[in-house]
């Protein structure tokens, strides 16, 4: 990353993005992406098996806004960007695992030391969810966002409702539907 993603920067970038500067949005996204990876790396160093998506995204959020108190608009935007970046990281990795799997024919990828290993199944799961979000994007963008926030951002229903500025029950209904769909897709 060639630019610092300081706290003030991120809200400025978001403001620019709101004003229509697409480049600013890309930069904000890249900053989030990078921050997320850094925090995840730190977390994984520290905690054995207790890694939580929600902790990760909230920490990233806190880190990115620094001492600032962003407007609700910026906040929601940032949280949504975080979920998107999470999705990106995991999908990239799942693709990589899948590619290896195809090459080696092994259902399990052993990176080293047998500490952790992403199963091929897990990778498929990530890719399925990603693919479903892509499909939903065309028919029900709201639902697509709910899935992205829930699955990759790890947000609770109430948080999603707040991020999307929707009533809780709408999100709950959406998620019920999406959850059923995704589970069905994963079993198929």
């Amino acid at each position, binding site marked *: 990353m060639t630019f610092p993603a300081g706290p003030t920067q991120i809200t400025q970038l978001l403001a620019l993005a709101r004003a229509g500067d697409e480049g600013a949005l890309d930069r904000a996204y890249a900053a989030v992406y990078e921050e997320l990876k850094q925090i995840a790396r730190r977390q994984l160093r520290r905690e054995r098996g207790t890694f939580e998506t929600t902790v990760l995204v909230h920490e990233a959020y806190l880190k990115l806004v620094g001492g600032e108190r962003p407007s609700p608009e910026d906040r929601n935007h940032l949280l949504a960007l975080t979920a998107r970046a999470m999705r990106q990281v995991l999908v*990239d990795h799942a693709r990589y695992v899948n590619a290896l799997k195809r090459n080696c024919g092994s259902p399990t990828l052993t990176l080293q030391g047998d500490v952790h290993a992403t199963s091929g199944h897990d990778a498929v799961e990530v890719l399925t969810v990603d693919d479903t979000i892509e499909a*939903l994007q065309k028919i029900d963008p709201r639902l697509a966002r709910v899935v992205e926030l829930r699955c990759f951002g790890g947000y609770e229903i109430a948080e999603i409702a707040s991020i999307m500025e929707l009533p809780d029950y709408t999100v709950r209904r959406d998620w019920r539907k999406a959850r059923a769909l995704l589970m069905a897709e994963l079993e198929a």
Partner: protein
Amino acid sequence: MRSAAGIGRALEIFDEVADLPEASRHSRLDELCAGDAALRARIEAMLAADARSGDLFEGNAAVRWSDALQVATGGDALLGSTIGVWKIVAVAGRGGMGIVYEVQRADGAYTQRAALKLIHAAAQSPLSYERFLRERQILAQLRHPNIATLLDGGLTPAGDPWFVMEYVDGVPIDAWCDERRLGVRARVELFVQVLDAVSHAHRNLLVHRDLKPSNLLVDATGRIKLLDFGIAKQLQEHDATALDDRAVTFGYASPEQLNNEAITTATDIWQLGIVLHLLLSGAHPFRITRDTPLAKQIQQLDDQPQSLMAAAADATPGQAAARGTDDPAALAKALRGGLAEIVATCLRRAQSARYASVDALATDLQYWLQDRPVVAKRAGPRERTALWLRRNRVLAASLAAVATALVVGTAVSLWQAREAQRESARTRESLQFLADTLTAAAPEQTLNREVSVRQLLDSARHQLDQRSSVDAQVRQPVQRMLGRLYFSVGDPQLATELLEAGMRGIEPDNRAAALALADDLVVYSDALANLERNADSLAASERSAALRQKFAPDDPEQQLRALAHQTVGHVQKYGWEICRQRAERALAIANRMANPPVDVVLRLYSDLGSVANFTNDRNRLLQVSEEGLAFAVSHAVPPQSPLIATLLRNRIEGLLLLDRPAEAEAQARAVIAMTEKSGGFAATRLSVLYNALAKALGAQGRFRESLAALMHTNELLLTDGSGPRNLAAVRVNLATTYAQIGDYAQSLQLMEQSIAALDQARVAAADTFRLHYEEGYARVLLANGRTAQARQRLDATLELVRKTLGVHSEDYARLLVDEAEAALQDGDAARGQRLVAEARERAIERGMTPASRQAAELLHYDSAFALLRGDLLTAEARQREALQSLQSSGNPFEIAVASSELADILIERGEYPEARKLLDRALPVLRETVLPQQRDLKAAEALVLKLR
């Protein structure tokens, strides 16, 4: 890519049928799917999934991420390589702050399985290698059956620290208890093992600061093993990223860790409290779970902890059963009383309100196990203490400023007597050396008749420096001796250095040597306290007490000395109330002795006075100081003895508190004269006295003289190398006085300089000292007419005070008055009157008498707001009352100001003759006291013009 159309249709149909009853759902599906088997199958699958519980895509986050990141960073290349003498055999896991490897010794010395922690910390801030090794050494000395021993440690070529610990094959304590369904009693018994280990570390001055179940393992034999002792601290001190790392263990972080304040052993007590709560109730006291978002965690940690019983009542039946109780209600009942109190005491926000030590906590748990009542102490006023300490730096430092050790004149002979008992060639050699050096500086040699003690000491020190060949065994006793003397003449910096050098590496093996070291440690501790090194001071004092305990357990005087010695470090850690009780107890013991040690008794009187001062116990302060001074006289302690310096100072403060500034001034001047005359005077001690003198002068409205005294205080502190807070405290006083005499610009400038100085010294914004500073700053801003800015600060400070000191504090009442001043400047009579009413209520609560200056000030505001409302009659009546109160308690300046204000009201009412009379009397005083641009004086001058 999935078919968007197919999904869309499936979602629509799902929406429609999901809530239908089973029977009608079927027929409806037949209709809607109309022979599309694939669509039908998909919807059936969705409905089946909908009926199932459990969430999607959860649980594997750690695995997914760690793999994703390892791919991104190229995996772990260290397997098979060696670090130090350790060969990396396997990755054991990810714990603590880095990766944990299983290692074996690679040098073939012997086979040893161990765990190596490698911490990627150095990238941001390389550690100091030397210091790292030194501290590693300390950690390695920590030997306890319940502590995983540190075997080795170092830095990789890249600068990453690594530690090798005893390999512990264990299970986290909470999981272990749950697996075995241990009952409450068994859990407490197991937990006592943890305390034993932590206590051992604390005795070695190590704080863990990262106690949590994953660091508390139970091995196959059921023995507790604590991991990572001391490592957290090492990293935190060196590593900038450690601050970020704190985020993870938020759930166990103490308030002081979250606020980035000083970490003490009380931090471990907090964390132990959380672990105990978790073990007993199954829930986190702040209701933090793995699912709690981080931001929420921080918020929840600010709440009151849930009581153990409430948590137990919320427990699941499974959790209750795992603790040997029938149901959550029974568990709650089992945890009621003792255990709940014990946990609550660990989880007090104020460090000093928690258990004073791990041993105290262990004792209480033992009591509980023996069905005896626990003694969990009540909340103490630690926050108040801390604030007071900061506010009264100069004063507080001198709590320890009494040289308990030796009166200058008798030092050498005492020391000689002590050393002579030991009758060794070495001590005779030391004595000879000392005699030589002192003789070299003696008046006969230098032809200078007026040799001060200080000059004598400087000369001896230089002699010592020059004779570099002197053997350490000769040199060290002399250094210690000189260190004590330097402290006696008020040079804590040199005293600390000399004592440090003189005590380095000394491990006494007999009673005499141990007690001599204990005495020197007391002086060392006092010197450190003078330098604001409070934690070090406490450590030295505790080491001293431990030596007395170990080598002279049956000697009442030694035990008294151990009990009696307290410094600011104690106050900071244990709180005023505990220190007061300890001092009272010690004094009672001393009074029962036929010949109590004079220095100890005087010290106790001094300490009790300081406590009384803090608690605003006006009469007690004066009384205890007088008693102490009487004791000194009856035991022929010379008036210039440093032993009574604090008593003299306390008497001055007592007079000031009782609104007797003239007497206070006389006392201050006498003591200053005496101190200055004794030569080689103590800058810190003098600065305290000058500060008190300045207060006495200010209280009499003699601002210019007060200013001069404060400037002198400032100079003394500068020469003394005082800490930033001490200096800032004096500057705040200076700035306030400048504002009083009307030099507003100078006042503001000084305040702003002080801000800069504090920033430079890295006194954090969260430093409680800043509260006092903020008060002063707001007042200066008000004086400069910067009302909006002042109000902003006042609001924030008031809020802070409300939260910390509480609404019943003096500060709160005072800030309300400042707020009233701001309201007056804003012309907001309604708000102002409300504030004054509240201030009055608070002040009366605190014992304000009607004839006091404080009462007069409030009446003045009543009057001012009445005037603002146009209620001239009330304004006049209140102002007359104010003037009345001041006649007995106020100084001439205050009376003049109040008179001129009354004149203002009278002019409004057309009562010119009386107004003129009042002004005639007031103006000369005002002109004499303050600068022409001073607000009250300007107002009065304007009135004169009106009257013409």
